[in-house]
């Protein structure tokens, strides 16, 4: 990780996954990320898992911001964590947001599926204010860097 990137708060790869074109939400998210001092690598709509991973490796990203609204998250998000592991970036933060399900099952159920089973770090409901994930991101990145530095200096 270059010291250059350390001076920003972190680098985030953003995109709308799979066969999904709902791009407005992630555009707003990108704007908020930049406003808050993050570097953003934007994939836009219809982004495939491989594109996320390639971009993350290339930019040494801290996190993936995966958006999905069209109800097909269940078709396109499974396997993403494993593919990251395989590509050697297994511990990258993965957040997802938008509208992750068709209709609205109980949120705890959704969290269980995407976080516990599919290995994402955090997921958000549609009405989330951009500040919330950004706040979480800051503390998650902070914690990891602290952990890593400890490891490095140890």
């Amino acid at each position, binding site marked *: 990780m270059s010291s250059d990137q350390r001076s920003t708060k972190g680098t985030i790869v953003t995109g709308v996954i799979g*066969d*999904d*074109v709902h*791009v*407005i939400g992630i*555009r*707003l998210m990108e*704007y908020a990320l930049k406003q808050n001092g993050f570097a953003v690598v934007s994939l*836009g*709509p*219809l982004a495939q898992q491989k594109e996320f991973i390639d971009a993350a490796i290339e930019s040494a990203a801290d996190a993936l911001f995966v958006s999905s609204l*069209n*109800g*097909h998250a*269940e*078709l396109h998000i499974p396997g993403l964590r494993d593919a990251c592991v395989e590509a050697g970036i297994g511990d990258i933060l993965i957040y997802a947001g938008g*509208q992750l*399900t*068709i*209709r*609205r099952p109980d949120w705890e159920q959704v969290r269980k599926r995407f976080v516990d089973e599919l290995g994402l770090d955090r997921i958000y409901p*549609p*009405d989330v204010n951009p500040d919330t994930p950004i706040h979480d991101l800051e503390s998650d990145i902070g914690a990891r860097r602290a952990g890593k530095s400890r490891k490095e200096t140890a």
Partner: protein
Amino acid sequence: MNEIIRPRGATPPLSAQRWDDSRFDEERAKILATWKTGADVDLNDAAAFHRSRAALTNVARKRGWAKQTGNVLLQPYGGVTTLAGQTELIRHVATEGGADIVPTTIDSQTRNLKYAAAEEALRASERQGAELLNGFPIVNHGVASTRQLVQAVDVPVEMRIGTVFPQLAVEVGFAGGMSSVTAGPIYYTAHYSRDTSLPETIANWQYVFRLIGRYAELGVPIGLQIHGIGTSTPFPNTLLGACCVLETLIAAAQGARSFSLDARLMGNMVQDVAGVRAIREVAEDYVCGRFGYRDAVITIDRKSWSGRYPEDMARAYGIVCYNAMSGMLAGANEFIANSVQEGVGIPLKESNADTLKAIRQVVGMMKGQRAGLQAEPVENEIRLMKLEMNAILDAVLELGEGDPARATELGFRHGLIDIPFAASRHCKNEVMVARDAEGAVRYLDAGRIPVPPEVLKYHRACLERRETGRRRKIDYQTIVDDIFSISRGCLVND
């Protein structure tokens, strides 16, 4: 039979000219071979099937009839995975909701030609009794199942598919008895794809339009619902209208004749009423007048607000009914109705029916009440909107030397047509809009769109009034606020 094949002919140069038969037939053979159900598509058999059904089970005929008799048509959105589910859905909205035209929205795997993945999800849905896709995978269902579907109701079925690769799905849909499809190349390039170029999308949709031409030659009229362009955020209906005209011209050149043009609710009543009327007048002028398609039947549908909705259904009723009123005041011919569960997820059929009932109540109460809004502000807005649409159309048609297909491509390339928040890389994204103090949509930055100086000046003045009123500049945060305002319960959130 690999799903990733994206069939393309040895693409001739872009032009709106009618395809010659050999080009169409060659292309058609390739298209029908991209998935096994293509083999069941037979044009003569399909035309015979259409002709065997009652006249008003045909969308184009129903729109023509409604226009003549002054009836206002209602169509909900809706598409689920399984044949059983979709049959139940359209039956319910037709009988309980009184829909005049029923929809079948196609899932987005199909829209992106992922037929194998759609097949898997369809089978899993059938096994689990669930609806795992966000629409009806019509290619996987095939012709026979689609015929079963359309015969389940005595109202016509419109296929709804936002895609840059419509060909096979449309072939199956028409052969299955559907008699209209949502179109076309401009909207779907800008908003439903990332990399696909305009020439490619135009060619893909010209295929559909030519197919409609073929059906017409066999005595079967097929309709088009024309989207033009739009962003699901506040957006000028003028740009939308100009693009509707271009899409209509491109389609008419291949033989299509029934067009329902969108006019979208943005929220300011004066502007929304003016929008319906201005788009109607400009479209008739260019399509029936200047380009001479005198037998084209043009109707205007009032599309509901298509940005973010509140999750609260009671509040969504507010939007739905407000939309109905604005359409009635403007004399819209049809309502395309987002359900009151739009903000929640794919709606239950009951919500779809309830939404239609609420709209029908407003339509019933307002029938014949148009006179009420012959107001000066509306007439002024209509005048400005027509000025602007004419300016855009004339400029791009000049660029394209009178050819609407080339006009479209060059218009985008040079930024004369443009949108904010585009999905597509082929949009310049230079234009930016905001609401004025009364919520009317105005250009904050018109980019390179040839908006006449008088119009631009008026828009600037309107925006300045908002800035003065709230003593704060219109900035990015304002644009964000304007995207969320309706879902949060107001039009202007200052």
